[in-house]
């Protein structure tokens, strides 16, 4: 299957977001792929937008089934969330459960004025009423397939398609 180039998708996403950027905006990337997208967007959007990262591990709804996954990353939000317009960024939107966890986590930092969602790829399989405000590409994939963003040692991003383990 021919997968689109992440760099082109980031370009598209940046153009769509740029028109709406307000002075009180901040970018928050979701670990791990969303953080790479956030970094690339921050570069293209310029200015000095505050940036943060979240790892949703402590808010996931599958903790009781799967436990804590290996390699939890620290969440870093070094700015005041109160009254901000937060642009939440992820690589692939699938079930919507990670986004639910990330929104819950954001509210433990304060009360944002608004939260918007930007993703590189909006794929099928939603299980919650969550839709992206900005998206660069839509894709339909068979349920057992997992799509994620990868990054090699040189920093080159690529989309990776794998079969989900049971």
């Amino acid at each position, binding site marked *: 299957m021919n997968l689109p180039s992440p760099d082109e998708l980031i370009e598209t996403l940046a153009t769509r977001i740029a028109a709406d950027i307000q002075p009180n905006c901040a970018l928050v990337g979701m670990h791990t792929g969303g953080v790479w997208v956030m970094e690339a967007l921050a570069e293209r959007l310029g200015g000095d937008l505050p940036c943060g990262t979240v790892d949703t591990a*402590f*808010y996931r709804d599958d*903790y009781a089934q799967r*436990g804590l996954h290996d390699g939890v990353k*620290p969440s870093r939000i070094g700015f005041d969330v109160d009254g901000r317009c937060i642009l939440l960024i992820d690589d692939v939107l699938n079930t919507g459960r990670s986004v639910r966890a990330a929104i819950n986590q954001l509210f*433990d930092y304060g009360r944002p004025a608004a939260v918007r969602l930007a993703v590189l790829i909006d794929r099928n399989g939603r299980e919650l009423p969550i839709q992206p405000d900005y998206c660069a590409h839509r894709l339909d994939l068979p349920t057992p397939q997992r799509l994620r963003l990868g990054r090699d040692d040189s920093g080159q991003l690529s989309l990776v398609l794998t079969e989900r383990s049971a």
Partner: protein
Amino acid sequence: MTVNPQLSADGRLKHLLTLDGLPARILDQILDTAGSFISINDRDVKKVPLLRGKAIFNVFFENSTRTRTTFEIAAKRLSADVVNLNIGASSTSKGETLLDTVANLSAMQADMFVVRHASAGAAHLIARHVAPHIHVINAGDGRCSHPTQGLLDMFTLRHYKGDFHNLTVAVVGDVLHSRVARSQIHALTTLGCPEVRVVGPKTLLPRDVESMGVHVFHKMEDGLRGVDAVLMLRLQNERMQGSRLPSAGEYYKNWGLTPDKLRHAKPDAIVMHPGPMNRGVEIDSAVADGMQSVILSQVTFGIAVRMAVMSMLAGGQP
């Protein structure tokens, strides 16, 4: 290979009873996860919902302030319900056995036991008898083991020194009676610390201590020379039977960590102590409150480390 009772069939941590035999992979995972919990301190809401609906019983058959309190805070920050039992003043004094006490607490829908007991192996015994969905954390058993203290000491070392692979660390004092020292030594050797020293009088070092992979020193100046960290131990007055030492004053003179003795360590060496401290016995106030002391950081990090252990145990299917 013998089966490790602390690990599930798929290699995940099921109970935390001792650091002896735990692979570096698990220790690293605990320290990394604790690192992520540290960032919660910067937030408005210093709580995460992971253990919502879980009941954690702090079952302390022996006195403790710091350990019990930090376990309680850790559980509450994970949104668990916490019940503290001071069993010394409870049913066991009426003759109930340890396992009866635990069976009764299990019937009260416990999900996790945090156990401190004066007898070695108490937590292991409980872990063998609880239902599969219940997890046990050893919060100190006899002279044997105090794994979360060992882990928080490793977290503190890693926080200040970055990595274990170039470190020289001295564990100083009453190693013989210390469950903390055993846990520290297991953790240090597992995590790849190349030079672990134990320093103390012959009467307070276990005879077989060298078999744990450490170098033994009987002179403070020699033992501290060039170390990156000094891990002081409490002189266990209440565990001393008979006279292994002439007096507390004599101990201070030879083994108490004073600014003068600390000068033998590297200039940027850190000083740790598990508490409670006997000031003027094993440690001088000028050191305990000095620039190189990270003793209060240990207490703060202890919360994050206990959160990490609890959250790694309680998730997933039994």
